[in-house]
């Protein structure tokens, strides 16, 4: 086993990997930018190496600097986390070339899955269902029109080098084709340096369901069941769960088998995820493979009981998979809420700032994977993910009730905003409770300012909660006059011109 691992990441995932290292008796090396000297992953690590200025391009994304840090620290292996360099084949190769172990799949497998069009072809050859679409990349709007007619509108125009919802356009009418092509090419060129595009049939009422797979270097490949990830905004996942309320036992088995087949097709090693799109009839299609640990891996950990990050490290060290397919049994239900520094009342706009006070939920069935602390500053340079709140319950209703309870214990106060009120809203939403949702759910259902106190007439101060808040504020601001120790002073001694103006941003819960 390794003695020392460098974690080429920051935030909650870096802390997550540090914890895995600790439990394996491995020393964890953090890297940090100038903005992150006081970040949690630096505080938690055994060793910490500065790697450059605040912008990620000048620090966390600098391959040679990260490898230099690994050598300087005497690390034997590098864990990339997710994001940053995690799916960068050049980085994986550079790590290997430097004589270090890359904790992840081969650069080759990454590259095969990184090109969406090549991956589709490979998957089709391996017998993995893909969405009907153009067999290859297209060149002109005319070709797009031709295939759009074959497939039937609506269709999705997608960048071949894309992923994560970028470089993608829905085409509902033929007139939109020219503009869609122009915008996809421009976005894709800017974002991935690759302007190629292809066409896919648009799946109606799509659910995003993915399967966690795991493989060791001897070719043992297993799946760990599915995750439901349809609660999204702008193609970004907000809430995930395992199992999926939509997936039947038969569908689970088929998805698992097919996911294992997909992984084997690229000789995959380590933790990976096969993302599927499922339609209302429970047909499912390969979307893409994520060749890294996912943000939402904890829900799988909680229902299977296996620590996937520790398993990544074990497999990278050449050990066999620590679980067989037979040992993997889903038990109960897990839900994850991603806590972002963003304002759910104003279109989820980014809302960085200082975390002055933080109170996190605890108790039965609650897991908190956190990347921040009270007193810390949330920088606008990086991803807005602050922490992940994960709960486990014996069934879905218990998991939802527990998440509601845990969210009720969660407070983040400071100059930042968080999306906690969105999660509270979701846990009370009837469609979510019934499991009746697809990837368009949020767009259709979430109307945060409708019916909230801010726009209703329910503003009376005789609501004890509002009264209590006001009194606590008055006390804290020392705006309270009157006779200390005397209950009889009904006349204020010191009339004050203090004005309190309340803007109540409460949702119904």
């Amino acid at each position, binding site marked *: 086993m390794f003695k020392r691992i460098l974690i080429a990441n920051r935030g909650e995932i870096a802390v997550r990997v540090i914890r895995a290292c600790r439990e394996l008796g491995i020393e964890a090396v953090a890297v940090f930018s100038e903005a992150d000297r006081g970040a949690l992953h630096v505080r938690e690590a055994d060793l910490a190496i500065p790697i450059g200025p605040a912008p990620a391009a000048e620090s966390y994304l600098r391959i040679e600097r990260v490898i230099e840090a690994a050598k300087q620290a005497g690390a034997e292996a590098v864990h990339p986390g997710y994001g940053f360099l995690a799916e960068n084949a050049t980085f994986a190769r550079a790590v290997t070339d430097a004589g270090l172990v890359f904790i992840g799949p081969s650069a080759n497998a990454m590259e095969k899955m990184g090109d969406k069009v090549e991956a589709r072809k490979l998957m089709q050859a391996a017998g993995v269902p893909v969405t009907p679409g153009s067999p290859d990349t297209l060149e002109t709007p005319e070709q797009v029109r031709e295939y759009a007619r074959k497939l039937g509108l609506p269709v999705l125009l997608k960048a071949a080098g894309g992923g994560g919802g970028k470089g993608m356009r829905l085409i509902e009418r033929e007139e939109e084709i020219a503009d869609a092509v122009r915008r996809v090419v421009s976005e894709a060129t800017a974002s991935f340096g690759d302007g190629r595009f292809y066409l896919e049939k648009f799946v109606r009422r799509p659910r995003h369901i993915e399967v966690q797979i795991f493989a060791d270097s001897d070719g043992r490949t297993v799946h760990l069941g599915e995750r439901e990830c349809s609660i999204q905004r702008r193609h970004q996942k907000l809430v995930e769960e395992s199992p999926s309320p939509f997936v039947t036992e038969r569908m689970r088995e088929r998805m698992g088998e097919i996911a294992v087949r997909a992984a084997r097709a690229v000789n995959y090693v380590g933790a990976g995820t096969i993302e599927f799109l499922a339609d209302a009839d429970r047909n499912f299609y390969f979307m893409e493979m994520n060749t890294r640990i996912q943000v939402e891996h904890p829900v799988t950990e909680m229902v299977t009981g296996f620590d996937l990050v520790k398993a990544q490290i074990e497999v990278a060290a050449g050990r066999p998979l620590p679980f067989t397919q037979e040992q993997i049994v889903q038990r109960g239900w897990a839900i994850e809420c991603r806590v972002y*520094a*963003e*304002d759910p009342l104003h*279109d989820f*706009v*980014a*809302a*960085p*700032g200082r975390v002055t*006070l933080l*109170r996190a939920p605890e108790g039965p069935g609650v897991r908190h994977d956190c990347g921040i602390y009270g007193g810390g500053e949330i920088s*606008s340079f990086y*991803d*807005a993910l602050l922490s992940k709140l994960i709960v486990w319950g014996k069934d879905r209703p218990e998991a939802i009730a527990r998440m509601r309870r845990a969210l*009720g*214990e969660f*407070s983040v*106060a400071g100059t930042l905003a968080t999306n906690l*009120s969105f999660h*509270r809203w979701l846990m009370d939403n009837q469609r979510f409770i019934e499991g009746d949702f697809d990837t368009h759910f949020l767009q259709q259902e979430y109307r945060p300012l409708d019916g909230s106190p801010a726009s209703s007439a329910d*503003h009376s*101060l005789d609501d004890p*909660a*509002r*009264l*209590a*808040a*006001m*009194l*606590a*504020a*008055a*006390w*804290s*601001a020392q*705006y*309270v*006059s*009157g*006779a*200390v*120790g*005397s*209950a009889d*002073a*009904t006349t*204020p001694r010191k*009339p*004050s011109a*203090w*004005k*309190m*103006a*309340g*803007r*109540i*941003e*409460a*949702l119904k*819960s």
Partner: protein
Amino acid sequence: MRCFVSLDGTERELLVERLGNRGLRLTFDGQSFEASVLNVAAGEYSVLVGNQSFDFLIVRAGSELTVSSRGRLNRLAFFTGRPAAASPTAGHASGRVEVRAMMPGRVVEVTASVGQHVERGQGVVVIEAMKMENEVKAPKAGTIAKVEVTAGQTVEKGDLLVVVE
């Protein structure tokens, strides 16, 4: 003391008095309420109104107090000395409105130009922060009177972006 609380446009006069070490009495509209208030830790307050228990985190930033509760209220902002300032992207504003950056970041695109008519809610500037592109929207319908930023520029929270008249 007497204080004036304005909640969504309605101003009320309140009387807040101390009762002993931990007690407060609040009077408004002829009704009185008593409560026990305890500062249990830095920024943390426990309040009992009758038998009902509430717990708040209070953070002060400038003249604004933000009260977060783990119960029914999500966030309650108090401003001292001035009436509530509407958030730049919320509400029906009228007259000349300055649209300011709600976060630090990099201006990716300016989608409005001087003299252009914009609808309420129409995007005017795109700011990249936290790896997301955040669209800043016009708080009211009107004409763009000024554009103060250009694409590529870095802005701080509160920096003036455009003026809508």
